[in-house]
Structures are given as C-alpha cells and as structure tokens.
C-alpha cells in the first residue's frame, strides 16, 4: 500500500489512507469547538460508523479479543449479548470436555 521512499514532500494528500483513516481523524480527533450549529458527533459516529459497520464483525473481533467498544454505552447491550453467547459456548465446551473424560456417564450429544 505504501510507496517505499515516500518523502514528506509534497504534502499533496495523505497517501495510503483509507476511509477509516480519514473518518477516524476528522470525527474523533482534531480541535473540538462547539460551533453555532450544535452537533454531537459522538452520536453520529456511533450510529453510522460504529454501529453499521463494526457490529457486522463483532463476533470475529470479539473472538480475537478486541473489545474496545465494550466501554461504549451505546453498544454495550449488543456487546453483552455477545458476552452471553461466548460464555454459553465456553460452558458447552467445558461440558463436552467433561463428557470426554467420562464417556460412559454422560449421554452423547452431537456438538
């Protein structure tokens, strides 16, 4: 993606930047000044960016241990559901493991 040897000049455009890079900066960073038109960008960012796109892969990311949105109140209910699902899967696995240890005692069940 990156051109080797790219120099600081010219500063034509931040090359290699994808939409996420740009949104990350213009929505989350930069000097915050309450203008005359009051907009809560936090709401916006949650609804369009986080919710629409990030939730789509919440399961995979969560499995990987990336869970920064959990502190996000707007997303936490979704995150909590995921947590329950994960716990459920974990319990199933532990149960299966116990069954494996004592094959005679537990009724077999397809995983």
């Amino acid at each position: 993606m990156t051109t080797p040897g790219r120099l600081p000049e010219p500063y034509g455009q931040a090359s290699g930047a994808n939409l996420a890079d740009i949104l990350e900066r213009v929505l989350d960073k930069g000097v915050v000044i309450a203008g005359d038109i009051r907009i809560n960008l936090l709401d916006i960012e949650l609804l369009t960016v986080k919710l629409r796109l990030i939730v789509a892969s919440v399961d995979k990311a969560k499995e990987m241990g990336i869970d920064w949105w959990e502190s996000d109140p707007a997303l936490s209910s979704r995150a909590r559901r995921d947590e329950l699902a994960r716990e459920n899967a974990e319990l199933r696995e532990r149960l299966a493991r116990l069954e494996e240890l004592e094959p005679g005692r537990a009724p077999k069940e397809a995983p």
Partner: protein
Amino acid sequence: MTGLRYVYAVCRPFGTPLQAELTGVAGAPAGLLHHHGLVAVVSTVPEADFGEEALKAHLEDLDWLAATARAHQGVVDALTTVTTPLPLRLATVFRDDSAVRVMIEAREDHFRALLDRLDGRVEWGVKVYAEEAADEPAGSAPAAPEKPASGRDYLRQRRARGQAKEETWQRAERFAHALHERLSARAEDFRLHPPQNSALSRESGLNVLNAAYLVPRAHSEEFVELVDHTKDEEPGFRVELTGPWAAYSFTGDTGNTAGTGDGAGVADAGEEVS
C-alpha cells in the same frame, strides 16, 4: 451573504497562497479569515445542508459523511503543504464571519499554544495487521478440512485452532509492541488508537496496532525509512504507513506521551482461550 461558515482549521498567517481551486465541503472554495494574528480557514456552506437538523440527517448518511470527510481532509491536507494547521473536528459550523471571529478571540491563547507545540510537525499513522488471524474464520479454517467424526475430534480440532490462534496473538502483540517502541523512540509524541475494523477499512487482516506518531518534518524521511525497514521483518504481519497528516491526533489538551493510556491501540491477546 447567506449561508453558514464551515471552519476547517486554524493556523498562523502564511505567505504562500492556497491552491487556486481548493474546494471544500459542498464544493465551495475555501478562503481565509484573518483575525488577531490567526487565520481561520473557512468556506460558505448552505444552511439547507448544514443547519442543525439537516446536518444531523446528512451525517447519518455514510456516503455524504464520506464525501464531506474527504473534502474536509482535502482542505486540511492542502494547508499542510504550506503551513502547520490545527485541524478542527468535522462539521464545525458558525452563523457568520463575526461568530468565527468571536470564537478565535475566545480561544486565541489555546490556539497559539497548540500551534507553537505542533509547528513544523506532522503526524504519521502506522498500523499493523495480522494476516493469519484473519484467515481463520471460526468454524471454516482451511487447516481443518475434515469434518469432525466425533465430538472428541471436534474438540481436538477446536483446541488446536485455539492454540494456533493464541500463538498468533502472542506473536502479534510482541511484534506490535516492539515496533511501537522503536517508532516512538523516533517520534516526539504518539497516540495509540483503537484498532480499526476491517469492514470499514476494507483492509485484509486484523488490525492489531493503530498508532499515530508526531514527527518533525525534518525527521520524517528517516521515520518513513524506519517503518519501511520493519515491513518484511516478521512474516504474517503487514505494516502500513499513512501520512503525512496534519497533527489531528495531537490537538487534545493532554500534551504528554502517556496521554491516551498505554495499550489502548494494541489489541490484547485472545484471553478467551481457556
């Protein structure tokens, strides 16, 4: 004069003229508003699109948001070629020029302090992606082509997958931390951002480091080379550099290096593997 004033950035007066055809959001040309020894870079936007209700609705439209974000960034980027701008957050809108002047007066000390600190510096974005981790969607890993014949096989496969994943994560964490240490030693400041989601970035692999480094222009070439050198160091990981950006990530009040808390941008290794 109808319309509202959209402010992109604040900077010090600069000699070089702006690009003649520098268009900002809504296709309007960007202009300069000098006041109290500072310059606000502004353009006129229609109230029909940037009034409160309309703006809220527009911002929920990802296409509109993307176009506006790119236009905003385009103006800030053009400024970066001629000066050190303080980029404002997207959609900072005022009624008219006098409201912009009042804003400058209210914050001029803050602006000057920030401009002093950031003068001659740019931001470089560095991201690390773990390729293997992403090639392993749960349940359809190519490494386990056979359908488990029994519950026992299923568990064995699952465990093997879990272990491989954990190893990948430990390697990813080590690599990301080591790279970050090397880069931050060459930067004046850094910020660790939350990892990006691949659905939004459309990048393959899983983002395990998403950092921004504040580097003097004069040292940028070295910094870029340093990043380039690390690219092929570790198989299975992809290092991506973006920039130079205006110092978006360094306009907050916390001026110290530990500002955003260590580890915020480095994904923790999967702890769910019990």
